[in-house]
């Protein structure tokens, strides 16, 4: 298969104020079974042969679970199939097509180079409460705290989030509500998560605001592009948990356990 690629290039020289532009490449003889990233690998190998600078992009596991890949293909985060970019195959496109490739577009995800962005803000949201404050050591026998399969399923449907940030990139407001809602749902429905239920949601929501993520106005784009098909219900859960927590007690950020 043959394609024309319009690929975003930015910071590929020494100019720190580079505002970026599209560069056009033609690729030929691509196997329809190749993944989108393998197609980019082939292009990069050719660019090396031509002694031209490679296109920078992130990827690691290439099986849809690590969440590293972060392309926007023809305007849709990850690509047309609601799977990660690494699980997008060239057979999903029409031979001869022009394909536009961009990095995630969000103020909270600054571009590092070309298609690679910095998503450190998501780690900081987790630091603000996305855990159960237990430390390593003897723990209770798990079967002393039964969890019904329905609750386990609900927790797991949210816990499968891969932290790729496509939800943020898809949202017209640049909100991280699906990401945060998924973590709050996972931990707040489980019995182990109850003691920190309120401090968790307040801490994480405040950190989202501090990072500059926008608010949710129910576009639903986040859930539509989520490769893990996390439903927008988790945002409802996040809102409910947040309101309840605010009513119940004064806002208090998740406090780290002191060691001694």
């Amino acid at each position, binding site marked *: 298969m043959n394609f024309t690629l319009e690929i975003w290039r930015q910071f590929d020289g020494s100019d720190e104020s580079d505002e970026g532009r599209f560069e056009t490449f033609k690729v030929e003889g691509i196997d329809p079974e190749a993944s989108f990233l393998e197609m980019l690998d082939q292009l990069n190998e050719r660019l090396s042969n031509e002694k031209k600078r490679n296109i920078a992009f992130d990827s690691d596991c290439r099986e849809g679970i690590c969440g590293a890949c972060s392309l926007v293909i023809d305007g849709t985060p990850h690509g047309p199939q609601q799977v990660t970019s690494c699980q997008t195959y060239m057979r999903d496109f029409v031979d001869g097509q022009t394909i536009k490739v961009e990095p995630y577009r969000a103020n909270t995800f600054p571009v590092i180079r070309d298609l690679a962005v910095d998503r450190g803000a998501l*780690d900081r949201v987790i630091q603000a409460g996305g855990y159960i404050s237990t*430390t*390593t050591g003897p723990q209770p026998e798990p079967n002393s705290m039964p969890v019904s399969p329905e609750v386990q399923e609900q927790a797991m449907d949210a816990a499968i989030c891969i932290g790729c940030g496509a939800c943020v990139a898809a949202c017209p407001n640049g909100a991280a509500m699906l990401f945060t809602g998924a973590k709050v749902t996972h931990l707040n429905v489980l019995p182990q998560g109850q003691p920190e239920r309120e401090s968790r949601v307040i801490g994480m929501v405040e950190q989202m605001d501090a990072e500059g993520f926008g608010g949710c106005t129910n576009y639903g784009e986040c859930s539509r592009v989520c490769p893990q098909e996390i439903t927008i219900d988790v945002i409802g859960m996040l809102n409910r948990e947040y309101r309840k927590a605010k009513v119940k007690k004064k806002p208090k950020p998740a406090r780290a356990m002191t060691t001694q």
Partner: protein
Amino acid sequence: MTVFDSNIPDGPLADKWQNWLDAHTLVGPRNRAGKKVIVIGTGLAGSSCAASLGAQGFKVKSFCFQDSPRRAHSIAAQGGINAAKDYANEGDSAHRLFYDTIKGGDFRSREANVMRLAQLSENIIDQAVAQGVPFNREYSGALATRSFGGVLVQRTFYTRGQTGQQLLLGAYSALEHQVKSGNVEVFNRHEMQDVVLVDGEARGVIVRNLITGEIERHAADAVVLASGGYTNVYYLSTNAMGSNVTATWRAHKRGAYFANPCYTQIHPTCIPQSGEYQSKLTLMSESLRNDGRIWVPRKSGDDRPPAEIPEAERYYYLEERYPAFGNLAPRDIASRAAKVVCDDGLGVGGTGRGVFLDFRDAIIDQGKETIERKYGNLFEMYSRITGDDPYETPMMIYPAPHYAMGGLWVDYELQTTIPGLFAIGEANFSDHGANRLGASALMQCLADGYFISPHTVTNHLAKNSEPVSTSDSAFDEVESDVRGHIQEMMDVGGSTSAQAFHREMGHVMLDKCGMSRTAEGLDEALAEVRAIKEEFWRDLRVDPGDEEFNQSLEYANRVSDFFELGELMIQDARRREESCGGHFREEHQTDDGEALRDDDHFAKVTAWEYGGDDPVPHDEALNFEDIKLATRSYK
């Protein structure tokens, strides 16, 4: 300078770890903030180790090359984690898990280490549940278990087909909790380049900031390597694109022995390769073998659709050759059996390198709904990748490089031959012998990270040592070596990408130092890998600019180490004149094609000392006191 003693504590096997714990030296709570530890890697082992040390009050610097610690490749583990809890009331016990692991490893691991691992297995499940890891549950609300490759009990705990992801997110959340508490600092997009020794002890690392290209120095009182395995030496593997050997290899070059490098695991259930462009192979969880039946047509070149091939003309080769274990035979055995039938021309698929994994009978027996509940996400993943629907037509699978049992040599305390340098998780060689059983990697990584290294590292930190500054001349020297190596790559000025060289080397390694090896093939492989390495240093192309974000440079840097590791793997495979586990030498097999061990000469660990083209082997004898050496049979 280097010590070579496994330091196994005295006492009965089952008491050794408790005896060690009772006797080790502690660091008082007030003194912990003054002790610094560097942890390289944030997978299951690295995250859990850093979080545990941080929770005790030590100051930890944690490094990963990924853009977030949560992306380490432990995330991709699917099937489950073993623990000898005996919830299924089958008479399971720590001793049985210990025995299965030793036997599964073809009697090439240390008894004391494996017993400790089996004993700690239960604590791991408790720890993970307390963190909120949503393990699958029975209707009663109790934890669910299933059986998994190579054992006869149900001791595997799982979270759907994403157990590694959930366990890693548990460890990652513990890590981020410690970041918040101020005891752990995470450096993402930083890659370790070398370890710094002061007076013979590991006292720091040189890392490259992958965004700015800056070369940084970090000093500490101990360094822990949790940098994973090296099967990307084969180019195509189930590892992530970035998985590499650089941290452990550079430590090896500074004096840490590298043990059993030839022990690599080729996993039987992966999606077959479809083309030359392919960048990685995708694993399908081994749990599929619980219900799927593996077969090939009895007649070579039978190209009827699989559904039209009658029962009598199907060769269920695992069920026929290994009636006791059948489709659940351990990985090394299942992989080699697949290779043998494909070598005999019975393979299926476009390349003839594939076998069927068929769910027809399971769907008839249990109903589509049950199968969907058990394997739905795996079936979906398969059909996304291949375009085939496994409910309708059998899956096609073929073995792919997956896991490295070899790694840095460590003693009972998980300390390498460099004092103060520890290796945990897949990065070390311990516990799995010559073959790893399914659902044992997650167990070992978390045992090392949560429950072993936090204590053994503490024991080391308890020794009074002078603080070291990064302006020490030892840092100058190592930094200059690191810069020199980078400059060398920048200076080649050729026109071939590192990926092309990597692919070429991978072909040689898989062909001649993969599932099946011969003396002749290994000799050829050594010459070929050296020739490709020479070409690499003559025609490599990396993008200009070493002090900036430069992925082509990162890649070349990793490949440069894979060449040297590949040479050592070949030399190790050549020296081990026997077949055991994942190491199958064609010269050493029984009449019916099973691995033939030579316990008289090779019941030992080979730990290699770095020596450039002529590495020096050292042997650690394996003493079996609890277990009788036996021929490993799954028939």
